[in-house]
């Protein structure tokens, strides 16, 4: 187990540098004249451009720039955004609210998905199963760019149940509506997987054996079926946490949450290379760590799996 973790950590280091290199190269190819974007339609003077290019090392070659960036990164310095703000500070300000939002969304989504999925799986073909099938289809078909403003309009403005926007230090209540909207990204898939898995396991041999032993139906479902059915779901939920952190671009914009998604979008819009690379680097780490945790959890849930 220990050796397995060490091996994975070493792989993570490689993946991390590979990923930042690719992202850096992509941003480098995309960046054309970022300072022009800052001043709008008016052309910059040559002196201004020279001064700003020198400040951000923009007139160096690609490898030199990447070297500057990586050496900075290793000393914990993420560099400065093109508007002069320290990216390290921006990361520290943006991450907490995004993490809270994603965790809240995943808790809401998985409680609904597992609850409804188990019920639907137990009564396959029943009314509840059909209704959830239709609902998940609707949720899957509804893109979040539609759902988020719609939820804001109906629940935030017209009914007034929730505040229509949230801030960086939002409380649970302010984050509830954005988290619900964000949760719809993953709830349908999680629900369908739970349902399919429960339905399949109900027909498994060990369930028949358990029933034949005379175990109470509650125990058969609650312990034997559920435990085995949840293995694929847990994997899915783990990966979804990463998806939600990076996928909050639209939701954070609509509900005015200054988190990771918003900063990524801003960085791309304003050709702010250092900003985008900084946020993506951290996202890469988050993905890698979550993947590791999920794999370890997998072993905890299924005793047949052993890591060497």
């Amino acid at each position, binding site marked *: 187990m220990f050796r397995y973790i060490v091996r994975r950590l070493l792989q993570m280091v490689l993946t991390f540098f590979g990923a930042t290199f690719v992202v850096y190269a992509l941003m480098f190819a995309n960046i054309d004249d970022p300072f022009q974007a800052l001043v709008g339609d008016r052309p910059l003077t*040559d002196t201004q451009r020279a001064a700003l290019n020198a400040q951000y090392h923009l007139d160096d070659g690609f490898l030199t720039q990447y070297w500057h960036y990586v050496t900075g990164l290793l000393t914990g310095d993420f560099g400065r955004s093109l508007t002069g703000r320290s990216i390290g500070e921006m990361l520290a300000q943006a991450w907490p609210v995004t993490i809270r939002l994603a965790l809240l969304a995943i808790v809401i989504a*998985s409680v609904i998905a597992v609850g409804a999925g188990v019920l639907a799986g137990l009564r396959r073909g029943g009314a509840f199963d059909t209704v959830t099938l239709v609902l998940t289809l609707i949720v899957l078909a509804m893109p979040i760019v539609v759902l988020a403003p719609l939820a804001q309009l109906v629940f935030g403005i017209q009914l007034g149940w929730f505040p229509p926007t949230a801030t960086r230090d939002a409380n649970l209540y302010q984050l509830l509506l954005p988290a619900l909207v964000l949760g719809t990204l993953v709830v349908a898939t999680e629900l369908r997987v739970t349902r399919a898995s429960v339905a399949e396991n109900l027909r498994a041999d060990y369930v028949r054996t358990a029933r034949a032993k005379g175990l109470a139906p509650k125990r058969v479902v609650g312990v034997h079926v559920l*435990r085995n059915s949840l293995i694929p779901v847990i994997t899915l939920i783990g990966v979804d946490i990463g998806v939600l952190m990076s996928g909050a671009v639209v939701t954070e*914009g609509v509900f005015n949450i*200054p988190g990771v998604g918003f900063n990524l979008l801003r960085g791309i819009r304003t050709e702010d290379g250092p900003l985008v690379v900084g946020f993506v680097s951290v996202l890469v780490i988050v993905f890698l760590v979550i993947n590791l945790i999920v794999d370890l959890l997998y072993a905890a849930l299924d005793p047949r799996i052993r890591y060497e």
Partner: protein
Amino acid sequence: MPGKSPWKVVASLAAIALVAAGCSGSTSDDTEVLPNSISIGIGEPSSLVPQNSVESNASQVLASLFYPLVRFDPKNKPYPVAAQSITHDKANRVWTVKLKPGFTFSNGEPVTADNYIDAWNFGAYGPNGQLASYFFSRIDGFADLQSKDPDDGGPEKAPEPKATKLSGLKKVNNLTFTVTLSENFAGWESVMGYDAFYPLPKAAFASEGVLKKEYGEAPIGNGPFKMKGTWTHDEKIVVEQVPDFKGTVPKIGGITWKIYQELGAQYADLMAGNLDVETKIPIESLGSASGDLGARLGKSPSSSFSFMGFPLYEDKWKNPQVRRALSMAINREEMTDQVFLGSETPAKSFVSPVVSGARPNSCGEACDYNPTKARQLYTANNGPKDIKIGYNADGGHKAWIDAMCNQIKGSLGVNCTGAPQPKLGTLVDKARAKEDVGLIRLGWAMDYPLMESYLGPLYTSDGSSNYYGYKNSTFDSLVRQGSAAPTTTQAEKLWREAEDLLVRDMPVLPLRFGQNVFGYSDRVTDVTMDLYQKVDIYSIDFAD
């Protein structure tokens, strides 16, 4: 242990997640607006250093922290505010600025001529890279503060400029200084009303000519409000009234500038009563805004100007009659009503009518929709059968470009297609290299309320934004004569004559003038906006 209690593992993970999500948020409600204070929505400013601010978000916040030398009356004529008087010599070359006595910065420092001179030198010095530095380019000695990169973007470092101080700025006494321009210019007083000309306190500088890094986080100004705390990035900037302010005292006790990423979120907060003023109603909400807001929806002219440049380096566009015919083929009213839902107005002149001396309909017949005449003129002069319209794909222009193409097809019976380029920079670079990009979509907003702010950069031969290559030496000299004229009345007359030449030559297609479309809550009243997309913080008041 593994496999023994997976339930507990899962349950405790969920519990940790919930606790983390719920409890780590500070529950303090300091985002709430104080009772005698209002909230106005803005986007994240790019910088709060006046000499580095070139966009309206920063401009709005700075207007509350600083007190300008001049402000503008409803006819956009300048009048002194922080200045006691602004006088000039006969040639309009040497300007004397006298400051009102007794003014202080919010940290108690008295405002003196040195504060202005230091700030302007700092802004003009090329290596400081301040984005608004071009405003100082008319002052004598500006060129000596710049240096050119020897290998244009290469690794070699640009040499130090010759001087660190503008030779055109001279201190006379503590409250008086003179500004010598490199060329005579009648409109200099108006130019000094811009953000770049705000003074900086001694406390802003770490050493001579070097700004403190943290100054931009909580600027100290000479205005009616001062910062409460520092700039909370992406969230808010709170300002409160300066006690015993010597100038015009605003009616409100403070402003919370709430920062939004999207206009839609701002509109939602305005609807829900969490925001007092939204300065730009998003276009997708314009349809319902009059119903939502009623009388609290306001419109006022802004200085922005949308137009289409003809690539004059292409043979097919060399004939002015063809250009005129195309202009008559376009129904501007239909476009502003149907596509822009009344948020912009049709443009029928080459200079926005908001500035003093400009006319609303100088273009005359050539900008009126007349498909029959347009077609006659176009075929008679053998206009091109295929029209391309170049635009930048990242600015949301596709809808109206397509609509305009359809109008052209309908009126002239020729083919018309939109030709998107990824960015404005690409479009402009290709036009500069005289590539066939088609008509060039462009926009402009003035820097100071003078006709020259449009005529100079857009249409003179060496104009900074004349990408389409319009050259007319008579026009150039009229604009220059106007700038050097002894009075603004004479200047405006010459500038109007220059604009008449544009009507004859049609180097661009005027399309639309912008408007501020703003909304406010029922807590506030007397909300007005100026040409720079700023709320007038002196007139806004609480509703009873």
